[in-house]
């Protein structure tokens, strides 16, 4: 048995022993006073063929993803499992070679005290903003890169926080062959310098991270690095109305399939700043990166399987149907750009604010290539993406609310295999929500996307009715009247009771990038039925 496995098993056994000992000691004397907590989520689809939108009917016409999570807290202890079933996985969720499977994929034991915590088993963690390391779960997109190993959190002094990670990254039903270890320390400068605090004292923290991956190399090259080290440093400064965060990451030589086995080092720099004042909020972000894709498996080409760091697209996430046609995803090989946001609420009682206030949200983002991959600040000539958008939201009365938005998007066609030309599009969306009785409402929204490129113009309409809680119905159509004349209609209903929700829909989905949390995967066109159930429960 390898020493890594031995350590994990030993620590698990110790924690299990203590956990059960305390649970049952309590049970013998009285009863278990712990807290059970769980959730279940299932998404199932039935596929039909549609030649017009190029939706194929796979051999397995029915697919289903299920997640059952159970947790138990008892005093300072907690333990849990996650069981997942893919019978088979829904279309586009995993690489097509992944077959039906079901398994307990996560299990953990955790002991938490005020200034100390240790978790053994599968755990999630993040250093800084995740630019160097993030283990997380996103079920929509199909990411779960939890580490199996151990995770320690300790506050050795009043001004310091330390995190340690050690383990292997989950890759679908298995674990990566590579071993990942790391450490993160954060120092609170105000506490360290014993500054007398009052309401104007800023919060200043300095952080540093180290992450190292060891993956055996058996190839012919002498200089091929089996160990890849990455370092990060960060500074956070904030007052009540102002904040500034800076983070810099340096990654050593990390040749892998996605970067064409490049021996170049990787770098990333990120700056965020925000300012707020009476009903006004503004923020600005800058990020430049080169060769920063950090993966637990050097031969893995899918971005959603076993990533070690988190590289979200720093753009606005819109909720329009048409805005999701040209979405940006981060270019880890090299990218420079940023975004700015502005939020303002016109106070109630003013001319624009009216009786209930009016809010305005504006955003601008811009990304381009790097001229020189070894210089983070060498903004290149090739533009990747830009988005200028503004949204107005006004509540006219207790019964009626309207929204109006405009968006101008530039999308570099070379980023997506489906289209080769650069696309400039303009989107207008208008929506209204009307409450015709308490708990009875109707929402209607119309959108239009105009472009001369790719598939030309699109339009969409969406209506939602909720006649009385807990039922709601919706119908929508996204229509490409520019080139393909394809309708992507959907109708459905949902019922919600307390913490359970069941929804059912029938319709067509276009082929394209499906993005959640800034990470995207390609989903083929599909036509058919979808049913979803989510529920949370506790004792």
């Amino acid at each position, binding site marked *: 048995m390898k020493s890594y496995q031995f350590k994990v098993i030993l620590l698990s056994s110790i924690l299990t022993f203590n956990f059960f000992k305390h649970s049952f000691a309590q049970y013998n004397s009285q009863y278990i006073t712990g807290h059970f907590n769980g959730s279940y989520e299932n998404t199932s689809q039935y596929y039909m063929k549609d030649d017009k939108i190029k939706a194929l009917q796979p051999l397995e016409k029915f697919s289903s993803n299920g997640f059952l999570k159970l947790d138990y807290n008892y*005093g*300072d202890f907690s333990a849990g499992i996650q069981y997942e079933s893919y019978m088979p996985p829904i279309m586009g969720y995993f690489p097509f070679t992944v077959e039906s499977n079901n398994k307990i994929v996560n299990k953990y034991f955790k002991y938490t005290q005020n200034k100390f915590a240790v978790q053994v088993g599968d755990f*999630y963690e993040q250093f800084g903003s995740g630019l160097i390391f993030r283990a997380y779960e996103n079920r929509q997109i199909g990411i779960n890169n939890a580490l199996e190993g151990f995770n320690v959190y300790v506050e050795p002094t009043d001004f310091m926080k330390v995190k340690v990670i050690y383990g292997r990254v989950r890759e679908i039903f298995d674990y990566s062959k590579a071993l990942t270890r790391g450490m993160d320390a954060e120092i609170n400068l105000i506490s360290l310098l014993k500054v007398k605090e009052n309401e104007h004292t800023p919060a200043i923290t300095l952080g540093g991270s180290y992450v190292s991956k060891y993956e055996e190399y058996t190839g012919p090259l002498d200089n091929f690095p089996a160990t890849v080290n990455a370092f990060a440093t960060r500074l956070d400064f904030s007052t009540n109305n102002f*904040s500034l965060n800076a983070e810099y990451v340096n990654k050593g030589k990390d040749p892998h399939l996605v970067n064409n086995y490049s021996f170049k080092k990787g770098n990333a720099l990120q700056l965020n700043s925000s300012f707020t004042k009476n009903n006004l909020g503004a923020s600005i972000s800058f990020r430049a990166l080169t060769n920063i894709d950090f993966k637990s498996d050097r031969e893995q080409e899918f971005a959603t399987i076993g990533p070690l760091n*988190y590289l979200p697209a720093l753009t606005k996430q819109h*909720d329009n149907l048409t805005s999701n046609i040209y979405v940006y995803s981060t270019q880890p090989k090299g990218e420079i750009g940023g975004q700015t*946001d502005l939020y303002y609420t016109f106070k109630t009682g003013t001319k624009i604010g009216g009786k209930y206030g009016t809010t305005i949200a504006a955003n601008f983002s811009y990304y381009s290539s790097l001229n020189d991959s070894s210089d983070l600040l060498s903004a290149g000539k090739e533009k990747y993406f830009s988005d200028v958008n503004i949204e107005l939201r006004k509540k006219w009365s207790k019964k009626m609310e309207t929204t109006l938005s405009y968006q101008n998007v530039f999308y570099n066609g070379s980023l997506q295999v489906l289209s080769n030309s650069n696309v400039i599009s303009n989107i207008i969306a208008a929506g209204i929500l009307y409450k015709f009785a308490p708990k009875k409402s109707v929402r209607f929204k119309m959108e239009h996307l105009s472009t001369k490129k790719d598939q030309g113009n699109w339009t969409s309409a969406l209506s939602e009715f909720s006649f009385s809680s807990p039922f709601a119905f919706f119908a929508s159509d996204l229509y490409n009247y520019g080139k393909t004349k394809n309708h992507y209609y959907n109708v459905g209903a949902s019922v919600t009771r307390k913490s359970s929700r069941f929804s059912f829909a029938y319709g067509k989905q276009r082929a394209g990038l499906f993005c959640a949390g800034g990470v995207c995967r390609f989903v083929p066109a599909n036509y058919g039925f979808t049913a979803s159930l*989510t529920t949370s*429960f506790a004792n």
Partner: protein
Amino acid sequence: MKKTCILTFTFLVFISLSLSAQESLPSVKLKAVSGRQIDFKDLVNESKDTVMVISFWATWCIPCISELDNINDAFEEKQAIKPFKFYGVAIDDSRTAQRVKPFVRGKGWKFDVFTDVNSELKRALNITDVPHVILFKNGKIVYRHTGYIAGEEENLFETIKNL
């Protein structure tokens, strides 16, 4: 190696033997837009028999924002009927986390908002979707609800009144 294991074992036995009064809520460290830092467990415990509402939301979730806007509009009126504590928990990760403070301040909401950037609290309370509202009283979950449709805040206020 052996020595490390024996030390770890002794240490864990010691800390587990020193367990005192049992609380059953997860311990998660949270940071608020206001700068306040607190353990979730302490936040629930300090509200005692006053109903405490935690509303999970995100800057990209339109129904969540509608719900919080509508709760905010009726905040003082409903507090006068029966006082309750109310906090938002933004599950925005580092893609949108930098937006939370400007967004909340731009809205002028009357309640404080915590951030849960790697979904630690969301996971500990087994929340699958936002919006999701949880009500606590005397350290226990007394009600929870997922999703939002216009007018549903009235149900929430009604529930608070009856607890």
